[in-house]
């Protein structure tokens, strides 16, 4: 198994340790790992880390997924603002 995984977040290539969650990759991509904006437009990042708050939802290869419960795979296309 390769030690790193390359994926794309909003079109930008991001390299993470193999086995990382998409939530971790959002942070590696820069800043505090913002996943989406709230209904009034505030930036939001993963909060509960365990699939409860739904604040980390993103689109992964076109499917809506929770970043904290999704493991990065080679070539994955992640879109924030899901």
């Amino acid at each position: 198994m390769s030690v790193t995984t390359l994926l794309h977040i909003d079109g930008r290539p991001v390299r993470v340790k193999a086995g990382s969650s998409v939530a971790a990759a959002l942070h590696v991509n820069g800043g505090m790992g913002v996943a989406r904006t709230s209904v009034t437009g505030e930036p939001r990042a993963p909060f509960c880390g365990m699939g409860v708050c739904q604040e980390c939802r993103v689109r992964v290869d076109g499917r809506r997924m929770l970043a904290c419960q999704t493991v990065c795979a080679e070539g994955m296309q992640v879109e924030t603002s899901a």
Partner: protein
Amino acid sequence: MTAMPLAHCDVLIVGAGRAGMAAAVAAAPSGASIVVIDDNPAPGGQIWRDGPGAALPPAARKWREALAHHANIRVCSGTRVVAAPSHDELLLEDAVRGWRMQWKKLILCTGARELLLPFPGWTLPGVTGAGGLQALIKAGLPVRGERIVVAGSGPLLLAAAATARAAGAKVVRIAEQASLAAVAGFAASLVRWPGKAVQALTLADAQYRTSSRIVSVQGDGRVESVRLRQGGRDMEIRCDRVACGFGLTPNTQLGQMLCCALASADTGAQALAVDAWQRTSLPGIYAAGECTGFGGSERALAQGTIAGHAAVGNERGARQHERERAHWNAFAAQLHRSFTLAPGLRQMPKPDTLVCRCEDVPLSALAGCSGWTDAKLHRRCGMGACQGRVCGDAAQFLFGWAPPAPRPPLSPARIATLAGLAAPLNDVDRQ
């Protein structure tokens, strides 16, 4: 309309944490066909998470191997429950498909979530749950060099701080809301549970302060500092991240959706009611672990083992673990006594603090509401993606409102999966 697959098993276990794993392994020698489903990418539950930032202990590996060793146990990771189409069936979904699973015995091992309470700034990127931060780090979140403040209540704060420090972060403060007397009393009680005392010693921390709580978090688009109140004194600490947790709340949603009765746990929080055999109020449905009340992983293990034996009719096997369960039930009770939340925490949110993070509903909008239903219908509180799992717990603590009754879908699901509820069924082999 394409047909929806219908699968069958003897024992269906929801949740692959310590309770679920123990239940599966206890039930396996009966030869029953067992399916364990869990929404996380790998079995292990909240403690035994895998990932580049996790050092999986040998015990976790041993349990995983035990699951793999039994040919009649099938583990479906990355799978969540969406609905209950009939009394002996659940609708499930993973990343690619939806299917219906029919069971003869069902064991709910859905664990607990953190109680997250609102304070000014709690929606800023960089604020996470305490156990949440631990989970994110295990899954690879890099925190090396970050200054972190951990705040809230309970032993989980120390565990989260230890995980952060091991990952290279600088833990600049651990703020525990309970008093020194309460925490000292808890530490003294640990002579009855020597293993826990050793664990507590290894987690001891020079930055730990009691009677200490969050006032607010400041920052422009991300956490820059936190204001804490210790005793009567306020102080501001510069930091990059704040991890907060105020104890745990049992995940009862699935049980409630199935109409299992609830009981008040020691904390006052609602938990799934179970008898000595871990049976819920409904025939054929058992519950074990933290969904029956928060009480630590050893208790979850004992309860899971009893539930697994009981579900396959092995009463003798179940009985052998009763003493162990009683031992850890007593520990749970001590934990709850020591870390009771101070009423003053209800003053943390200000009028403009958002209580519902999904629909951005501030405290001021809830002040005049008569209860949860009123808040939901007129203020949209709890109407967002988390379905009140965060704000419902907060509103219960702040206003004493009974938590929202769950409705299907239990978690946001794809249209194709939901359409399967009405689609013809395609019976597939036993799993």
